[in-house]
């Protein structure tokens, strides 16, 4: 197990380096002079342009620029936001909790709805319930989240006035964004749960369990679901990353604070250090989640370690 862990850790290094190069290259791949772009609407003196160039090390040779970028980033220094003048790390830290809460709430909703739909569809395979559950899943996958979000606002804010349309803070503000986020992800979980459940339900040990006269609910929950959970748990880790990405749209639609709002604003304002910092942060978070899932998977299924 230890060797597996070390192997997996080492294998993330090229990924992290690749990400850092891509993020670093962002600044240099945009058409035009990046300084001009960043300072587009500011009134600036030549001294300030020089200062900003120096601050971003744009006056140095490329390899040195990259080395500095990586060294600083490794020490948690992602530079300063052009607009707010605050350290990028502080901006991320301030916005992260709200996004995490939203993501976790979305994940919870996705799991509850997705697994319920998936189990029902598998157990009642080829009935109307199966069809209905899979149509719901299909809709969930197909519907763009900003559209779903606006529909929910239209229904539950404008018509019924049950929940506020915007803002962060208490539970009431969390409901609509979390449902929007969770519904899309629930569809994927539903489909995966259904297919693995179907696979498991055909196994001989299920027939054995049934033959022993166990109640149907016990067979499904204790025997089938447990074994069907393994791929679902794997997908949960990945869904977490996807939900994190989904907050970019959701937070903007619902005017909710968070990393997603932060990066959209940073892009519109051409705040390059902030964009770079957030992209790097999200990419690293993604790599870590991936690693965690791989390890978790190995724990759950010993055959993986040998592979």
């Amino acid at each position, binding site marked *: 197990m230890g060797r597996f862990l070390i192997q997996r850790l080492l294998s993330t290094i090229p990924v992290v380096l690749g990400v850092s190069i891509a993020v670093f290259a962002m600044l240099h791949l945009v058409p035009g*002079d990046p300084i001009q772009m960043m300072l587009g609407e*500011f009134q600036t003196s030549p001294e300030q342009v020089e200062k900003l160039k120096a601050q971003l090390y744009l006056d140095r040779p490329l390899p040195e620029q990259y080395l500095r970028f990586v060294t600083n980033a490794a020490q948690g220094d992602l530079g300063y936001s052009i607009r707010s003048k605050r350290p990028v790390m502080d901006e991320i830290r301030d916005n992260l909790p709200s996004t995490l809460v939203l993501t976790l709430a979305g994940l919870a909703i996705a799991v509850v709805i997705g697994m319920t739909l998936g189990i029902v569809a598998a157990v009642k395979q080829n009935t109307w319930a199966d069809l209905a559950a899979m149509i719901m899943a299909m809709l969930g996958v197909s519907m763009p*989240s900003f559209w779903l979000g606006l529909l929910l606002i239209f229904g539950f*804010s404008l018509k019924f006035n049950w929940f506020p349309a915007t803002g962060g803070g208490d539970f009431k503000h969390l409901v609509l964004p979390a449902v929007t986020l969770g519904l899309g992800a629930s569809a994927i979980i539903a489909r995966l749960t259904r297919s693995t459940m179907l696979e498991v339900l055909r196994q001989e040990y299920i027939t054995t369990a049934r033959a022993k006269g166990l109640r149907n609910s016990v067979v499904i929950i204790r025997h089938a679901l447990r074994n069907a959970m393994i791929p679902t748990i794997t997908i949960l880790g990945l869904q977490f990353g996807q939900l994190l990405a989904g907050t*970019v749209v959701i937070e903007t639609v619902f005017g909710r604070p968070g990393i997603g709002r932060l990066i959209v604003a940073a892009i519109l304002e051409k705040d390059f250090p902030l964009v770079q910092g957030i992209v790097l942060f*999200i990419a690293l978070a*993604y790599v870590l989640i991936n690693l965690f899932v791989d390890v978790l998977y190995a724990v759950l299924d010993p055959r993986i370690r040998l592979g």
Partner: protein
Amino acid sequence: MADIERLISLGMSRRAFVRLAGAAAALPIMGGLLAACGGDDDDSSDADSGGSGSGGEATSGTGTGDATADTGGGAPTAGGELIVGLDSEPPTLDPHTSPSAVSFMITCSVAETLTYLTADRELKPWLAESWEASADGTSYTFKLREDVTFQDGSPFNAESIKGNFDRIIDPNFQAGSALASLAGYTGTDTPDEFTAVVNFEEAYAPFLTYTAGGPLGIVSMKAVEELGDDFATKIVTTGQFKVESYTAKDNVSLVRWEDYNRQAPWAESEGPALLDRIVFKFIPESSTRVTTVETGETQLITGVPAQDLARLEDNDDLSVEKKLWSGIPRILILNTSMEPTDDVNVRKAVSLAIDRQALVDTVFAGIGEVSSGMLTRAMMDDESLSQPYDPEQAKQLLEEAGWTGDGTREKDGKKLSFVLNVVDPGSGPPPEAQLIQANLNDVGFDCQIKAQARAPWYEDNYNLATNGPLMFLRSGDYDGLYAMFHSSLIGKNFNFAGLADPEIDAMLEQGRTETDQAARRALYLEICQKLADMAIAAPLVDEYAVWAGKKEVQGLMFNGYTYPQFGMVSVQS
């Protein structure tokens, strides 16, 4: 997901599947961003500037006529809370660093300025009781009020003015629009405690207008020092409202400053503001923002998109307020240094060929009106400047200029081409570009739209590499024309016409020395007429700042820069 099931069934290992799923999961980041940019951009006040932004004053404007959101009955009562939906989060509340209109929508009710510009463009005393310009226009003496203190208890005096202005021009300080307001500033003298003499290298008459602008809001230097970087969200001023709290990406909350002891320039009596609290919520998505004012989650919003405007205007619970922005309207600049727009007849033909009414009826439906000159009607409303739509005359002018033929015209074997330079903010070129293209092609041009990101858009303009950019410029003073048309600014912001005309230069310089308001207006009217005669640009649309609010919200006023003033606002229950 069906695909993934199929891959598994095809014998793909679970780990390979995990990786593939990971790659797929990364995609929504990109897709999401595009959607968000596109959705956000058409109504964000400073993000879609078609390349404008700064200039005299990056984001300031002048409106028409003081007005209240609603004139319904009921005497204003003190107390209550107002929730306002803004279309973006301000980059900072510090008036000196912000380049962004949305900052000043908030700070104009927090920070006070030396003078106050009314909607009728009249300068009134505010922190300064009186002022005087030196004969040569390089020096401005302000007599300050003696009964003012900052919200943190520190005294307000001539040193405060010196400290504020010195801060803005400090090369180690990244100033926003404020820097242009102090162009050529050499220092402030403080002959006595309540007299501040502000000096400039050269005559700078626009400065008086700028002393009333949001970017020169006066802040407590004590707080600047003590708070450091936190000052950006906790500004301390002398105004009627104090910053209570700031929640990033969510809202900023202002509370009434009970100790405000004076009569604000717009107020009928002395003392603090009426409202207990104003909460500005940042709601970037326009559909969501519009919904909040319908549900009552907010009571007032700005940045109403054209497609929702009619619905809000039909809503009996709401009233919609439209104020013309000041400065240079949406305009098509014509490059005088490049063929074929170096020919005045071709430039005139361009202006004649554009159907401005069609633009106002479609793209700018309800949010703009036909523009008449190089300055919006809010600043210079004069019939002599109006620009006719006459494609037949355009064709005739082109014939006279030697451009002939059916379809695309030619001269000496060369096509009559026109490269239109527009900013594509990520959601495609602005729709008005296509209308203009069609109009120009109708009279025989071969118009190409060059839609690009902002940085190369600027670069083309500095190099005078296209026939003309589509742009606008918000400016609180006529002097915005200097930034647009003075020959010293070719290759810089914003002489994108490549105009080098000694007579225009001289007049623009004279405008900076002339401190008499009536004489200034006459001078700038003449400049506008001359520019129109030379067809240096085709002005298109004067845009409105649009606010929609519940009818209970009363007493909303706008200053001469088209920013809201909340001191007299009350919410009738």
